[in-house]
């Protein structure tokens, strides 16, 4: 039987980089095929080519043995190819149903949308693939895992038989990853072919039937998970060992840098989404916050940053009450922030890299002097970030759009770290970053810690939390429900605390 997908000699150049360089890829019908590779290796580009979003400069695409030329995603969808992007593309203000049928609306006479037919088809798809979702929920109110499910359903709704998932697990907590993998296996059982990108090698080994590794735009090799270890894979990707997060010796001091006392943030209908949170982070300490997404971490972080007003409690930064101080003032006092959603909160996508390097610090030297911007200072800093944090880009004049997802993340982390903050709020700091660069970011945070940086780390990556933190607190339904020592907690224990299972079982 002809392979479901066969790519031969795909080459794609962007200004200053060869994103794909003579790539060959074969995906068998009904298999789960993983694509691995470091940031900027060309994974997303290759998938976008397969999805008709970008034309290759050369090379051929065969689907089920037939050579095709793709000019648009619409055409790819016709051929049964669907894609869920690295950065979600849902309309927040619309319901699940509206989002799913958007662009493929079933019509009644007179150009009216047939919502009933849409709903029925949606339910059908959901049942067939075991995907559970409420069609009338506003997307805005959904958690990340659910949003992703909507994206997947949206693709299946259009009749996709070949599914492309770009870093689907980057945004999920372990429980959600399990759920996603269950879904993927069911999809496979019902005949779908799945192509997915992932940076977490143990996940890849768990679910993939075949793994292809890319490096600097070229295919390094194709392997079976039974034949390789995570170490082997890492070596194929970056040519070095798989790093393990390790906190090293404690550098915690007596001096409190960030203190929250009795913090309460009201959500909808006066229910507290952050409920009486008291916590202090010392200079030289990393405090990790564990929790299933949607348990108040986002609101807690927003209150500390200053974009959401707490209705009770006090936030103290370096001994000063900042509960109602402006965001800008907090940032100038030395509050660094790596946001969870880089496109929404971290970048000006249409602006150059050097402008992005100044975002959030534009009132500080060397980015400006008094009211005047210093282009020299901005460019200088941007170049330093590019070098020190290994942001892969031909130059700093390109717009943030042109960076790969992981390189965008490195730019943000670099921007915050070069500003030499006193307190860093790191919300999923290594999301989407490849294993090699991840180790570098961990090293940077650890270095800064030894120089007195106080870090509040929010992460869905339990290995990162355990490996990096000096203390871990667990957040559940807005409250801090447990305080754990990372030295004697396993990811499994932590997972149990996060879902509340450990508490119900009567553990401390």
């Amino acid at each position, binding site marked *: 039987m002809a392979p479901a997908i066969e790519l031969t000699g795909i080459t794609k*150049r*962007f*200004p*200053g*980089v*060869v994103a794909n*360089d003579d790539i060959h890829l074969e995906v068998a019908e009904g298999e789960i095929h993983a694509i691995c590779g470091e940031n900027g290796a060309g994974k997303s580009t290759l998938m976008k080519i397969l999805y008709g979003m970008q034309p290759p*400069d050369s090379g051929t695409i065969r689907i089920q043995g037939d050579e095709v030329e793709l000019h648009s995603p619409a055409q790819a969808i016709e051929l049964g190819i669907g894609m869920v992007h690295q950065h979600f593309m849902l309309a927040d203000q619309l319901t699940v149903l509206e989002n799913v049928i958007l662009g493929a609306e079933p019509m009644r006479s007179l150009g009216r949308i047939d919502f009933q037919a849409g709903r029925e088809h949606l339910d059908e798809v959901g049942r067939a693939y075991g995907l559970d979702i409420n069609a009338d929920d506003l997307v805005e109110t959904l958690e990340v895992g659910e949003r992703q499910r909507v994206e997947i359903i949206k693709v299946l709704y259009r009749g996709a038989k070949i599914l492309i998932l770009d870093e689907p697990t980057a945004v999920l907590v372990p429980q959600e990853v399990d759920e996603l993998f269950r879904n993927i296996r069911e999809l496979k059982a019902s005949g779908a072919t799945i192509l997915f990108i992932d940076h977490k090698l143990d996940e890849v080994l768990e679910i993939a039937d075949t793994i292809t590794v890319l490096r*600097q*735009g070229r295919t390094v090799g194709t392997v079976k998970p039974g034949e390789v270890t995570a170490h082997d894979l890492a070596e194929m990707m970056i040519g070095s060992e798989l790093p393990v997060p390790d906190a090293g010796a404690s550098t915690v001091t007596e001096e409190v840098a960030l203190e929250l006392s009795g913090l309460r943030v009201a959500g909808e209908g006066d229910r507290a989404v952050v409920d009486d949170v008291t916590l202090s982070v010392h200079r030289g300490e990393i405090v990790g916050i564990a929790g299933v997404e949607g348990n108040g971490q986002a609101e807690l972080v927003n209150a500390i*940053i200053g*974009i959401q007003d707490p209705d009770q409690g006090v936030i103290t930064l370096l001994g000063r009450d900042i509960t109602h101080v*402006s*965001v*800008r*003032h*907090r*940032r*100038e006092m030395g509050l660094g*922030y790596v*946001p969870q959603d880089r496109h*929404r*909160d*971290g*970048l*000006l*996508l*249409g*602006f150059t890299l050097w*402008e992005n390097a*100044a*975002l*959030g*610090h*534009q*009132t500080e030297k060397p980015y*400006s002097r008094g*009211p*005047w*911007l210093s282009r020299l200072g901005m460019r200088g800093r941007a170049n330093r970030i590019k070098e020190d944090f290994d942001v892969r880009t*031909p130059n700093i004049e390109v717009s943030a759009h042109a960076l790969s997802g992981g390189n965008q993340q490195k730019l943000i982390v670099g921007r915050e770290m070069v500003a030499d903050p006193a307190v860093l709020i790191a919300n999923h700091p290594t999301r989407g970053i490849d294993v090699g660069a991840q180790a570098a970011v961990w090293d940077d945070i650890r270095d800064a810690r030894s120089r007195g940086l106080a870090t509040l780390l929010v992460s869905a990556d339990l290995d990162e939390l355990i490996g990096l933190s000096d203390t871990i607190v667990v957040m559940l339904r807005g409250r801090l429900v447990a305080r754990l020592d990372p030295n004697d907690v396993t990811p499994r224990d932590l997972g149990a605390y996060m879902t509340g299972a450990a508490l119900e079982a009567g553990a401390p």
Partner: protein
Amino acid sequence: MTERLTHRLMLASAAPIAAVVIAVVLSSIVLLISGSNPLAAYADMVQHASKLETQVDILNRATPLYLSGVAAAIGFRMNLFNIGVEGQYLLAFIVAAHLGAQVELPSVLHIAFILVVAMAVGGMFSGAAGVLKVTRGVNEVISTIMLNAVVISGLAAWWIVEWQAGGEISATGGRVGTEPIAESGLLPDINSWLEVFTREVGLGKKLTGMLVVALVVGVVYHVILNRTVFGFDLRSSGANPTASHVGGVSPKRMVVIAMTLSGMVAGLVGMTELMDTGYYPSNPISLLGFTGIAVALLGRNHPAGVAVAALIFGFLDVSSGILQISGAASREIVEIMKGVIILTAVIAYEVVRRIREREEAAAAAAAMAASPGADA
């Protein structure tokens, strides 16, 4: 290097030029259909515009259009659609005319006083729409449209009666406009500056001194936007309000400030007329606010682009007069041309953007083919 620069400049101007060319072609078709000779009409327009006196007219027309365009552009930069420039400049016009006639000051101070009043009135009125947006969530399009109505058929209509020269005259007695401002409050014309380069301006035409004010506004707009922290705040907040907020820029504050600045510049639009005649007439020059939106669109909110757009529109407006006089075509053809230019400009800008992207990629590919191994 210079070759590449000229190429870039060509690409940058390709879109507006294409828009004008297409507008000329389409207008010719309309002219032919309506039974006029397009060549004759264009010849009339060009010949007319080659006269120094007409050029003064064009500049006088382009000056308020430029100010109006910059006012709209400031809003657009912040993703705000200030439709209220119309109302803002009329209100500023009448209040500045009235207050300017009440005071006696040395000339420079008098002129400055009037301009400051106009900017303050425009700024406050527009800022109010900004405040409504951030406190009550009222969309600025709706609030500025309503504020336009309040001014045009409300305040201005009332005050013109109230502030009538020679006291209140009965409705049948006709309206003559506000009390005239003393000579000291009028901005002198700058014919002498122009005449340094050209011959003497005839026909009693006067080049408005507001042209200088407009140029200053343009330079200040450019410098603030691109060279200051505030400008960076404004551009970033307009491009991505949430990321900018996290970066320390309050989007609400930015909305109010941007609306206020937009209104301040709008307040100057009517000053071209006031600084010349000295009073608010019963039928002041109108629709400059709405045209300004089109001018900003054609000029891509860029200080120099808006200037070119204002000149094009100024030329078309002035040409409509000659067409009527020469009878070569109906003057409405000018309105059609304006509309077509805007539509084609929007499309042409997109096309040029894509061409540029493709060229950059091709250039990079060529550079890399020349030096293999430079792909890391």
